[in-house]
């Protein structure tokens, strides 16, 4: 029996249209816009101003405070301005605009394709290198990676878990990376193990990626302490807590972190970025993005420089097909709808999905028939139907008692509801209100 998390979860149609398409390097665009906040936490401080010449890989934004990350130029050229730019949801934030001139990289970056396996630097130096290189969680959450590598005093990490699950439908960027950069990922995993001082790393991959499982399994035999674990396909297995449950049968308590049960989780894409940062001295300036959709003419997996306008990315994939009703940044279950196609590509974008209009509309809302499908689909074992009603009626204290803040917004409830009820919309409303109320009480 393949491992998985025991209760809850759904099986959305996989639609991995691009699983067989190799990663293609996208041409450097004519100009880029690099936001200074591409991570959870404090935005980086700009280090350049209008007229400055920059090289590819040069530090242009300095991480500030405990939770923050560095930002590097992904191109060479001239800074045209430092100004606000609208992100894919239309929200404005500070960004560096660069007009591209050639592609001149800073000298310290090793651009050869030769794989370097020997890890020469100490754990402390690895953590510093991750911070310096602007490494953040590549699965979409964009939490600065160096923080997760600093195990707090009094806590102990005994296993590193590598997330190769990619449970969101459509997305194949991690899948392709595992197939094409498998050895680099495993070196990256070894680097993370050294930084965390653990002997054991487990890579979890869902069984729909049999080629990646067998490829990494055979490569892993020449690495110490790394094992590959096939998992039964079930969404949301890529959620940190569900993956930990599936692989090592430990439950991260409500409000706690994986480290509280002795585990640290990193994404395969992050492991690759760590490899490039530590062994090749290359900061995080590009990433693999799955650009896909049922009517997209050239769907694929593209290696794209950070800051490339989404419109250029969509052009490479054959443009926006007629009748597109929605563009999703991320997967269909947890991704955000894009309202601004001029927005730049950022570190956390693992996929762009173009959805035909017919599939972009929601079902009409019908009365709750109390079928309890949302209850059995919830991987956190909440009662979504109840949380929706409580939010709808403004009963936030009761919602807090029913653990509304434990919701990770995976969307299983809304997905499974036969009455087409917007369960997660209301739960988000209730959750944010409860969090705000809790904060205000603290502030008083």
């Amino acid at each position, binding site marked *: 029996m393949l491992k998985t998390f025991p209760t809850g979860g759904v099986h*959305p149609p996989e639609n991995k249209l691009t699983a067989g398409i190799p990663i293609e390097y996208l041409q450097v665009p004519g100009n880029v816009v690099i936001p200074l906040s591409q991570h959870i936490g404090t935005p980086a401080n700009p280090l350049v101003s209008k007229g400055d010449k920059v090289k590819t890989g040069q530090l242009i934004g300095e991480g500030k405070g405990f939770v923050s990350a560095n930002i590097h130029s992904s191109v060479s050229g001239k800074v045209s301005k430092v100004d606000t730019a609208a992100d894919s949801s239309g929200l404005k934030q500070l960004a560096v605009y660069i007009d591209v001139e050639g592609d001149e990289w800073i000298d310290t970056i090793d651009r050869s394709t030769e794989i370097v396996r020997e890890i020469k630097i100490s754990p402390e130096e690895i953590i510093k290198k991750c911070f310096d290189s602007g490494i953040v969680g590549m699965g979409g959450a964009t939490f600065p990676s160096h923080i997760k590598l600093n195990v707090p005093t009094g806590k102990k990490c005994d296993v590193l878990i590598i997330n190769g699950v990619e449970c969101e*439908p459509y997305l194949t960027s991690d899948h392709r990376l595992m197939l094409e950069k498998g050895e680099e990922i495993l070196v990256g995993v070894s680097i993370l193990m050294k930084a965390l001082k653990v002997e054991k790393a487990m890579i979890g991959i869902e069984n729909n990626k049999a080629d990646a499982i067998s490829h990494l399994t055979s490569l892993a035999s020449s690495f110490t302490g790394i094992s590959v674990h096939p998992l039964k396909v079930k969404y949301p297995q890529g959620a940190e807590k569900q993956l930990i449950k599936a692989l090592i049968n430990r439950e991260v308590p409500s409000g706690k972190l994986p480290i509280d049960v002795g585990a640290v989780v990193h994404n395969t894409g992050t492991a690759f970025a760590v490899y490039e940062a530590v062994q090749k001295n290359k900061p995080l300036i590009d990433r693999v993005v799955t650009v896909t959709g049922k009517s997209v003419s050239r769907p694929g997996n593209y290696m794209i420089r950070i800051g490339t306008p989404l419109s250029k990315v969509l052009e490479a994939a054959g443009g926006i097909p007629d009748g597109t009703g929605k563009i999703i940044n991320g997967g269909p279950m947890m991704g*955000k709808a894009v309202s601004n196609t001029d927005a730049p590509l950022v570190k956390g974008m693992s996929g762009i999905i173009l959805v035909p209009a017919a599939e972009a509309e929601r079902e009409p809302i019908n009365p709750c*028939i109390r079928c*309890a499908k949302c209850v059995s689909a919830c991987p956190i074992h909440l*009662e979504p139907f109840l949380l929706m009603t409580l939010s709808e009626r403004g009963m936030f204290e009761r919602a807090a008692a029913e653990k509304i803040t*434990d919701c990770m917004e995976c969307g299983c409830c*809304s997905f499974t*509801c036969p*009455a087409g009820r917007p369960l997660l919309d209301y739960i988000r409303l209730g959750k944010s209100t409860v969090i705000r109320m809790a904060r205000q009480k603290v502030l008083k």
Partner: protein
Amino acid sequence: MTNILNVAPSPHAHGKESTRKLMFNVVIALIPAFLISVFYFGIGAIIVTAASVLSCLLFEFLIQKFVLKKPISITDGSALVTGLLLAFNLPSNIPVLIVVIGSFVSIVIAKMTFGGLGNNPFNPALVGRVFMLISFPVQMTTWPVPKGLGTSYLDAVTGATPLAILKGGIARGQSITEIMSQLPTPAQMFLGNIGGSMGEVAAVALLIGFVWLLIRKVITWHIPVAVIGSIAIFTGILWLINPEKNADPLFHILAGGVLLGAIYMATDYVTSPMVPRAMLIYGCGIGIITVIIRVYGAYPEGVSFAILIMNAFVPLMNAYIKPGRFGEEVKHG
């Protein structure tokens, strides 16, 4: 940019399930039982079913159109299911007018007065059925003897149900061995060749429907298994204590409305609990109350009452029986 983009929040995907599909899956699951009831009870089964279904749909339509003035939703299949289940709980020789009165109580009083689909505390079909049982006790307990397709409608030959034979026999002081000689064999009961409500007689058809409901994930196993299991255990204990005074568990499960009730009535979404643990408690409650009524009560059968009584506890169970939240118990591997 000419494309107008939809920017609703996630999830951007929706499963294939809908209320209508779930309801029609229940209808499909009831087809074998309907065919068998026609096979044993003839034209009466068709007349009663048609009267019940059509009047349920009509009452729902009239209330939505003229009283609530809301969009008409009779195509969602819920009134169809109520109509079918009500008919399945009736003898096949009952006059149409009584059926229509039962439908009125089911739809208008038990369902629409509470706000329609999703809001009724009690199973509408059972409220209608119990109302009819109390108001028309003669017609509701005059069961046609299964004579095959040629069984006539209103003037059918009548006889007692197995449970009534059992109750009457025990009241007269007969031993189980004596009573058993008058009862149909388990095989006859399994195939439905017995007197009773038209939809409840054929265990085999109801079990086929159960498998269908499980495959289509319309219901989970919890409630039916809890009902049937608790009846088997309770009657099993009584039978072991005194096999000359109490019928065996297999008889209790195959006779009367246990299977119809456990699989199709107790599992009604709206009136059953939402959490698996509560479903098991609810199911056991139904089983225990059923046996108490059958063995110690005035009525030979108690499934309908048992389900309605447990329906009343569902809001309480929903309020106090919670799923074990993820991460509540810290397990170290």
